[in-house]
């Protein structure tokens, strides 16, 4: 019975197979089916994903529809307030591809940051904030695209609670009736980085900045893939289907070298309340557990993430650490900013890099982008605004890529 065994070769062959989970063997029922059942019983309305859409696979091998067009941009308060280049880059990308979208004023923050920070709320209030926003989107006929990782995770867990608890549904409906709004839940809760993910090849087709000399470390957002873990993009071609593909897939499509590091799954340390009122924790964690580890193990040119809190934490925590001679200095960008930059977006009119704290100049220099010239352009914009020649910057000013093929 003995035969010559080469276990290592067999082993390597076995490992070359990526993970392809069978959706029929998923351990939990599909929440979307439960949603449709509730709709059939007249309890709520499910807003369907409009065409065109792209199907991606999630953790258990189920497919998820990601809409391309007719989007209602559910904005992030942290982005709009403190990192406006994040929001601007998302919308700039939409405009470059001629996407029909709504940037609503009929939108509140998901209030998740406050909820996770202070718990000065309750389940019904949080559900109502979400449902009010979803109803507002539904009323316009456009499909909500969620900008913030926190919002995305919070809405995913709220959706579960809404579906599984009739008493919560009834309380929510009572107040929505008062507001004259229907109870609407979208068919899929879609994060903007999932839109960027399905658009990545089209983005790469229009890439004008060569990024093959850049090494990046990816920081995946906890609230993107850890809350309701089954609803996140997993792709057999990325990490063998074992880690979420979002962000990494985009960077690889742009030719960027994505480097692994030993704290990949760690939180950034945002803490929701810690970054505001217990900041020693946040900056210690961000520096000691993320930035220093990236720097020591991979020495990346940048770290890329896809959530407001993560960008804020990683970007703003590095300054104080310099005073303690910590090994810091890795610029932080959102995936949409990297995508926009690759397509030739203006580093200040679109990426608004002047709002970032950790120095991005070496990165732009390595990419061959003359940031001094572009900063002068932006200062001229500011001067023109100051002189009263125009009320502010418009899309006309910012739309054109600064580089072409």
């Amino acid at each position: 019975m003995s035969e010559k065994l080469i276990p290592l070769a067999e082993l390597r062959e076995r490992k070359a197979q990526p993970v392809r989970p069978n959706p029929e063997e998923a351990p939990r029922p599909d929440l979307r089916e439960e949603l449709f059942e509730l709709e059939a019983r007249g309890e709520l309305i499910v807003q369907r994903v409009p065409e065109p859409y792209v199907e991606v696979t999630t953790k258990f091998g189920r497919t998820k529809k990601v809409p391309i067009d007719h989007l209602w941009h559910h904005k992030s308060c942290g982005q709009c307030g403190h990192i406006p280049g994040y929001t601007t880059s998302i919308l700039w990308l939409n405009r470059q591809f001629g996407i029909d979208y709504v940037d609503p004023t009929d939108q509140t923050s998901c209030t998740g940051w406050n909820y996770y920070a202070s718990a000065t709320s309750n389940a019904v209030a949080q559900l109502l904030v979400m449902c009010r926003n979803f109803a507002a989107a539904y009323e316009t006929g456009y499909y909500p695209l969620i900008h913030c990782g926190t919002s995305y995770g919070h809405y995913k867990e709220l959706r579960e609670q809404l579906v599984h608890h009739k008493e919560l549904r009834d309380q929510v409906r009572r107040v929505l009736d008062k507001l004259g709004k229907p109870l609407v839940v979208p068919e899929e809760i879609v994060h903007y980085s999932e839109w960027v993910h399905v658009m990545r090849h089209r983005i790469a087709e229009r890439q004008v900045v060569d990024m093959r000399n850049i090494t990046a470390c990816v920081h995946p957002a906890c609230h993107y893939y850890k809350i309701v873990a089954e609803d996140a993009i997993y792709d057999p071609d990325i990490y063998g289907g074992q880690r979420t593909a979002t962000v990494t897939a985009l960077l690889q499509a742009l030719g960027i070298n994505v480097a692994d590091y030993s704290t990949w799954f760690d939180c950034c340390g945002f803490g929701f309340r810690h970054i505001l009122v217990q900041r020693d924790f946040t900056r210690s964690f961000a520096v000691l557990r993320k930035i220093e580890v990236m720097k020591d193990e991979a020495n990346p040119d940048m770290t890329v993430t896809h959530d407001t809190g993560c960008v804020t934490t990683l970007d703003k925590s590095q300054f104080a650490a310099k005073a303690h001679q910590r090994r810091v200095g890795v610029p932080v960008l959102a995936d949409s900013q990297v995508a926009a930059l690759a397509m030739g977006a203006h580093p200040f009119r679109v990426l608004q890099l002047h709002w970032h704290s950790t120095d991005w100049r070496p990165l732009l220099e390595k990419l061959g982008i003359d940031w001094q010239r572009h900063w002068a352009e932006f200062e001229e914009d500011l001067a023109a605004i100051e002189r009263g020649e125009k009320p502010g910057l418009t899309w006309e000013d910012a739309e054109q890529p600064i580089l072409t093929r």
Partner: protein
Amino acid sequence: MRENGLPVLVIGGGPGGLEAARTVAALGTPVVLVERRHRLGGTPDAEHYAKLTHHFRDAEEALGELIAAVTSQPLVEVLTRSEVTACEGEVGNFRVAIRTPEGTQERTVGAIIVATGFQHFDPGRETQLYNYYSFPDVVTLSDMEAMLKAHQVVRPSNGQPPERVAFIQCVGSRDRQIGNEFCSKVCCGIASKQAIEIKQQLPNARVFIFYIDMRMYGYWENELYWPAQEQYKVNYVKGIVSEILPKGDRLLIRGEDTTMGRPMEITVDLVVLSVGMEPSSGTRQMARLLGIAQNKYGYIEAGGPSGLDPVATSRPGIFVVGAAARPADLDDTFATAGLAAARAVAVLRQAAVAAD
């Protein structure tokens, strides 16, 4: 006692099927043994098992004895590279189609014993972040068995013997998020056995086992667990590892040392995932084909009306052995094989009496 002359069909030529076939033949009844692979032996053969937990007997040798007992038995007809493709009829009179390399045969059998066994859990579906498909130095219990059998316990990344080895228990079992809520029963014993074997081959290596509970039933306690700790200085840590990530050219593993109450991180050279059992594809296929009930995990439902009959399926005349019905060790497999053999022969004799 007379029989109706029909044979018993045994599906699966692993330890369970072999023992069942041997016992049916020993009771004087003919057997048709159908095996999908090119030869007998089942999972211990396909996965290159090194030693069994029973006194560390060489697996190939022990299995060889069992196979010889079957192939030398004139009452047993062995069909390898064959599969059952259809089944009609009822207890005492099942008409089955068996596809062999020479073509499809139609046979009539009196009783059927399903011994299609298990397969190991695929670590790509694990909830924890073990990155089996990304890191060469993360292996499974079956990968380690093959290495032990070849006396080649090395780091796949560089072919060098490891200095520090870590086992992680309960991979793919006891997990609501995966759906395999059950315990796979044998992994604690097997991991301890492998830990001892590694120390025997590499006396200077440090071996750790990270566990939730150490399930050392009966004599495993004194034959495996105590010697592993006392003689071979294997370190058992109560706390499961949650992440494996690269650190330099080694692996960083992260868990909590719960008895010390603090997070723990160490670098090791080789990680062995103690992957659990799942019903094999053959088990699922045969269950559907034979029309017998499966439980929510896909195992063949056993127990019978009383719940106390470990080999009874939902159809009279069809019996299930070993790991096709539940996580099972070799003792369970041999015991249920013998019981199924007895029941199958009894069925044939009753059918003969009824026909009179």
